[in-house]
Each structure stands twice: as structure tokens, then as C-alpha cells.
């Protein structure tokens, strides 16, 4: 089950890293294959902006939070057999996908 990682770069920005592994080296036809992908990008940051409105009388609103992700990483998967891989879970660092052998 070889693992190969390669990257391309854009000036000034971090390069994502990714690794992939299958849960088995051999599958029978019809068996479920599970692919685990670990990925990251040092530029990726979760940012939460908190906004509070105040008037001159000293009254303040309840704070409102707005969140976003800077430079998020997206994944795409293909295989030599043309199978469809379905995402089972993805927490932004580890994605688990499955397909039928």
C-alpha cells in the first residue's frame, strides 16, 4: 500500500499536506473500502468575530459572533477504477471516505 505525497506551491502561501491510506491491501468484489485522508494547511485558520453595539448611554447589545475559515482546504478523490467515493466524515483535518470494491 504505497504512499506518495507531492505538492505544488504559490508564492508566499503555505502548501497543504495530505496523506491517504486504505484500510486493507486487498479487497473482494463488493467489499466496502475505507479511505482515511489526513490533511492540513498552516494558513488555514478559524476566525470568530464578535460584534457588540453600544450607544452613548452605555447600553450594549448582546454580542453576536460571526465565524469563517481562512484559506480552507478542499479534497477531491479519484481512483483508477472510476469508483464513486462517498465522504463518511470530515472534521477539517481527517476525512473518511468509502467506496465499493
Amino acid at each position, binding site marked *: *500500500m*504505497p*504512499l*506518495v*505525497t*507531492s*505538492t*505544488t*506551491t*504559490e508564492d508566499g*502561501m*503555505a*502548501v*497543504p*499536506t*495530505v*496523506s*491517504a*491510506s*486504505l484500510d*486493507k*491491501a*486487498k*479487497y*473482494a*468484489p463488493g467489499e466496502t*473500502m475505507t*479511505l482515511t*485522508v489526513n*490533511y492540513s*494547511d498552516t*494558513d*488555514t485558520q478559524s476566525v470568530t468575530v464578535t460584534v457588540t453595539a453600544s450607544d452613548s448611554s452605555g447600553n450594549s447589545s448582546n454580542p453576536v459572533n460571526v465565524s469563517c475559515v481562512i*484559506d*480552507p*482546504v*478542499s*479534497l*477531491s*478523490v*479519484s*481512483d*483508477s*477504477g*472510476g*469508483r464513486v*467515493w462517498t465522504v463518511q466524515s470530515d472534521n477539517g483535518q481527517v476525512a473518511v471516505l468509502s467506496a465499493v*470494491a
Partner: protein
Amino acid sequence: MRVTVTAADRSGNTATATASATVAQPSSLPTFGLTATNVDHLTAAFESGARTMRNDACYLGQYEVEGSLPEIGSTWRADNWRDIKAAGMEPLIQIHLSGCAAWAGIDGLYHNGQQDKQAVRPEVVADFAAHVVRELPEHTYFKLGNEMDRDGSAAWMDAYAAMMIAGYDAMKAERPDIVVAVEGGIGQNEVQACLDRGVYDHADIIDHHVYGGGPLYNSGDGRYLPRKLQMMHDAGYHQPVIASEFGVGPGGVGTEGLTKQEVADLLTERATRLLDIGFSTFYYFPFTAGVRNDALWNEAYMVEADGTRNPAFYSYQNLSA
């Protein structure tokens, strides 16, 4: 099977990773599938079927050239095919590209001047190959091209790789359920050229034609078969390996001058060696006398034209037991 994962951020940076595993082929993939019972009933059908299969694969392209498509593959659906399947055997449909070349016009690349070894535009191969698998829904196993990876020039291998990749991708897009064999390289240079060009990322089965004392035993021209298989294994490719053409006839060392028993012994020796290095499936050629008139092949037949079984038949049968 090779999975490629690409991670991309919003800045345009990307990273890729791959993981490979072997997916076993369905149990219907024949392994020495000719039993005595099958041969009793199907010897003639098998041979004529095999020849019809190949001729039709070429002929389909000719239909396209003419702009008419009268009942494509009618002969493929003849009862002999159904009998073969009923007996537990699966035909391997070889898709020749000669008709395809005539259909599209050639690009000027030839291999030894042979009609079925011309390079055509990849998109034409894709259209043709997809057309064949669409029109033959009852067949599952296909082979793309015939002995085309036999010229190590960069220009030819570029053209060859483009054709195979385009053809495979189109066939699988048309019918993801099918199993597609691609040739495994006549020599080590060709294997490396295919590795460099990603050809084996687009192949479910790796196929070799193994005759006589040829590619397996002859180390000349980098053809030593175990080393070629090792190259692919080291590169991470573990597809099943078959011999869609296997025989003890010509191929460096023919069978002329041998007795039928010596031919039978030779068959056992060579098939056993192939099994040892990982081959799983064999399509013997020539099976029945009369398929080829070349005197060099005569001693290699398993069965005479009148149905008499030669010792080679029993060698084959014992290997399949």
C-alpha cells in the same frame, strides 16, 4: 486500484497523495476454465467464438467507417457465446483498433506497417471503445488493443499511452462494471515508458501474450517476464496478470520436431512457471487444429480437427484441476 486524493486551498496550492490496493476479480474470471465437459461440448464453439470475437472487434470499426451500423455484434450474441458462458467461461473481448484507425484516419504513426498497430487520435479510440462496450452488454471482460506496445520510441509510446488511457477511461465511464485488460509491455523499456506515462493507472488487468520460448524465457530485448512484473510491483501496481494468448507454439522456440508428448510436457513446464510468477488466467492458442495453417503451429494444438485430444489437452486439464 489506485486512489488519488488532491487537497487544494483557496490560494491555489495543491497537494496529492495516493493509496493502492488490490481488488480481487470476480470469481467468474476463468482460471484454466476448460474442463473436459466444456471441451466435449464446446471445443469448436470456443475456437470459432474466439476468432469471431477478434474479427468482429475489427469489423465494428469498419461499420463505423461506412456510416452504417447494422445490428452490431449480432454474431457475438450467437448461441456459441451463450454456451461458453453457460459452461462457466467468460470470453475476453479483444478490441482491435484497425477499424478504428480506418474510421478516423491515421496520424502517420505505424508500427511495422501493421494495420492494427496504427496510432489514432485518443478521442477516436475513446469513442470506438465506448461504442463496443455499449453494444456488447452481455460481456464483462475486454482487452484494449492488440500487441501495440512494441515500439520503444518516445513518439510511439506517447501515442500508445494516450490511446490506452483515453480508451480505458471511456469504457469505464460507459460501463463501470466491466473489467478492462491492458498490455503489460513487450520489454522493460516499454514497461518503464508506460509507468512514466501513467498507463497502468488505467488498467484493471495486465495482459501478456506468451508463446513458446519468447518473452518469458528470452531475456533479450529486456523481455524477461518476471523482471517486467517486478517493475510494476515495485511501482505499486498489483493488478491481476493474465495471458490472453498463451501457447507453446512459435515465439523464439517453436514446437516443430517435437512429439505430441513433448509438447504436452512443455506446456506443463511453461504454464507452471507462469503460475509461479503470478499469472491467474490463460487463454490457450491455438486450441483446435485448423485454426492456423502455419506448419510451425501444428504440433501445438490441443485437439485435432476430428476432436481427438492430444496429450497437451490432458496437461492443460491437469493444470486446471
